[in-house]
């Protein structure tokens, strides 16, 4: 008769690299020495040597490895939550594990750049200039057809400015410093200053006088003449007045950006590759498992307790494959379900405790604590009696 005699926990283990499923920490000498101790600790927590433990050393080592990995995952999850805004868009090339991440304003500014683009002040989309040539007697110009087709692969343009306006009024304004044409010459003559060079005006004129005069010129153009104006709808430009024969060939310039550039959500990284090689989300923040030997005593204590809970869960699984097992002339119930239930509760408690501790170390909570400390200190100091100064 073929039989198997599956060995169970003999009371001690002897860890050797390769004994864990993933081998994540097998080369860490501190992990190696602690593996045997954690196995013994877990077995004793489960009742050994009073009761047999139907597990093998490798199973304890697997629990230990999982426990360290769970601790790493919890710490790394917290770091991602804490720093996601700061690290998003940064290169994935180097690991953040064990390194301090300094907050930056980069991501906030990146968000603000979109507004800058729309406002035409900064932003991260290239503003370009284009031109069309007037055709005599033609008022309508299709900018998509006349410019985008050949220069922007037909992409839709967003026109931000059209340089189609009258000549600045100042060019038709006599030099205000000359003094002529402003109705003051006679007065200057009265003072005896009229014989000086016309390029010199001894009368101090307020600047609003110039502004009013320029405004008068522009109003005159708009109301009494054919003022320059245009209308832009769906990148169809309609200009007024109608170009005349001698206007043909004259260029009309405009400023624009390509709508696809504005809507492109993929940012260029340091190498100029849009959206690649940078931290995009939770999944590619470059954080690795922690180095076991570098975890402090607080963390190690958590890991050992979690490993013991995992071992209990595993033993529960072993003992609950069969609800009852035969004994001679009868049968007995095993405690697998109870073990699993207890282990689940212990695991949950440990995870909750770790998360709460991590949250308490968050930047926000630390600042709140500092503020509370400061306020409390101030309140305490307020109750200190002040000396009465006697002069």
């Amino acid at each position, binding site marked *: *008769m*073929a*039989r*198997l*005699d*599956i060995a*169970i926990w003999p009371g001690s283990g002897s860890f050797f690299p390769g004994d864990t499923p993933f081998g994540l920490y097998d080369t860490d000498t501190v992990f190696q020495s602690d593996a045997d101790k954690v196995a013994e600790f877990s077995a004793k927590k489960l009742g050994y040597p009073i*009761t*047999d433990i*139907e597990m093998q050393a490798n199973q304890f080592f697997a629990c230990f490895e999982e426990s360290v990995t769970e601790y790493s995952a919890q710490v790394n999850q917290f770091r991602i939550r804490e720093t996601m805004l700061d690290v998003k868009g940064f290169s994935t090339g180097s690991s953040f594990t064990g390194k301090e991440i300094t907050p930056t304003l980069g991501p906030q500014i990146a968000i603000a750049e979109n507004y800058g683009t729309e406002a035409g002040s900064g932003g991260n989309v290239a503003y370009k200039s284009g031109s069309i040539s007037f055709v005599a007697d033609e008022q309508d110009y299709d900018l998509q057809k006349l410019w985008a087709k050949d220069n922007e692969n037909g992409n839709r343009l967003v026109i931000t400015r059209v340089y189609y306006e009258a000549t600045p009024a100042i060019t038709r304004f006599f030099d205000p410093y000359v003094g002529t044409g402003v109705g003051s010459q006679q007065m200057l003559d009265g003072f005896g200053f009229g014989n000086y060079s016309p390029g010199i005006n001894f009368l101090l004129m307020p600047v609003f006088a110039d502004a009013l005069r320029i405004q008068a010129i522009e109003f005159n153009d708009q109301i009494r003449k054919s003022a320059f104006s245009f209308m832009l709808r769906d990148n169809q430009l309609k200009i007024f007045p109608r170009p005349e024969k001698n206007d043909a060939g004259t260029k009309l310039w405009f400023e624009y950006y390509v709508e696809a550039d504005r809507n492109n959500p993929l940012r260029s990284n340091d190498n100029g590759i849009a959206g690649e090689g940078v931290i995009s989300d939770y999944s590619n923040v470059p954080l690795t498992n922690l180095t076991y030997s570098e975890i402090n005593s607080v963390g190690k204590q958590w890991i050992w307790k979690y490993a013991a809970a995992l071992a209990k869960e595993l033993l529960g699984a*072993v003992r609950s*494959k*069969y609800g009852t*097992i*035969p*004994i*001679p*002339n*009868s049968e*007995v119930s*095993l405690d697998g379900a109870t073990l699993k239930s207890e282990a689940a509760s212990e695991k949950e408690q440990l995870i909750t405790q770790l998360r709460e501790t991590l949250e308490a170390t968050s930047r926000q909570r630390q600042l709140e604590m500092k503020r509370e400390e400061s306020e409390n200190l101030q309140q305490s100091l307020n109750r200190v009696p002040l000396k009465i100064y006697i002069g």
Partner: protein
Amino acid sequence: MPLFSGARDISLFEKLNEELINSVIQTEIFFYKLVLDETGDNVYGEGTDKRYYAGIKLPTLVDRSNQQYVEEAYGVDLQQAAVFSFLRKEFTKISLVPEVGDIIEWDKAYFEIDSMVDNQIFGGKDPDYSLAGGMHGSSHSIICTTHMTRMSRLNIEDVRYGNEPSDYDFPKGI
């Protein structure tokens, strides 16, 4: 191939049984195997002078009835029935085959096996005979139904003096 009751599971059962019976409960008996060749008989084939191999200590589970005092023609007789349930592995690992007529010593008394049940087959398969192969199922136990027998018929222990060497000279029925 059945998914349950594999050799690994059986190994687990045996470990748990051994822990329960050998360590937790730890009720132990002496099992005396009858030596047929050395046992004399009368003209009727009755064993009048029984001989036994030395007792072997085995763990077991005991289900005993109360002692009964029965009025016989010769006077009051003490009777007691008991069921001894053994893990079958305990016999196979020492290559001992229990049979009707063997004696179990327990609680200052000797019990003769009247009948045996070897029928607690887990998973419906005895690996020794299973068509599914030897890696599934288990013949788990041997249950011996016994009655208390007279010490004087066994020649195992001196009825009057006991087996203490300083009190009495060995050997006797063993």
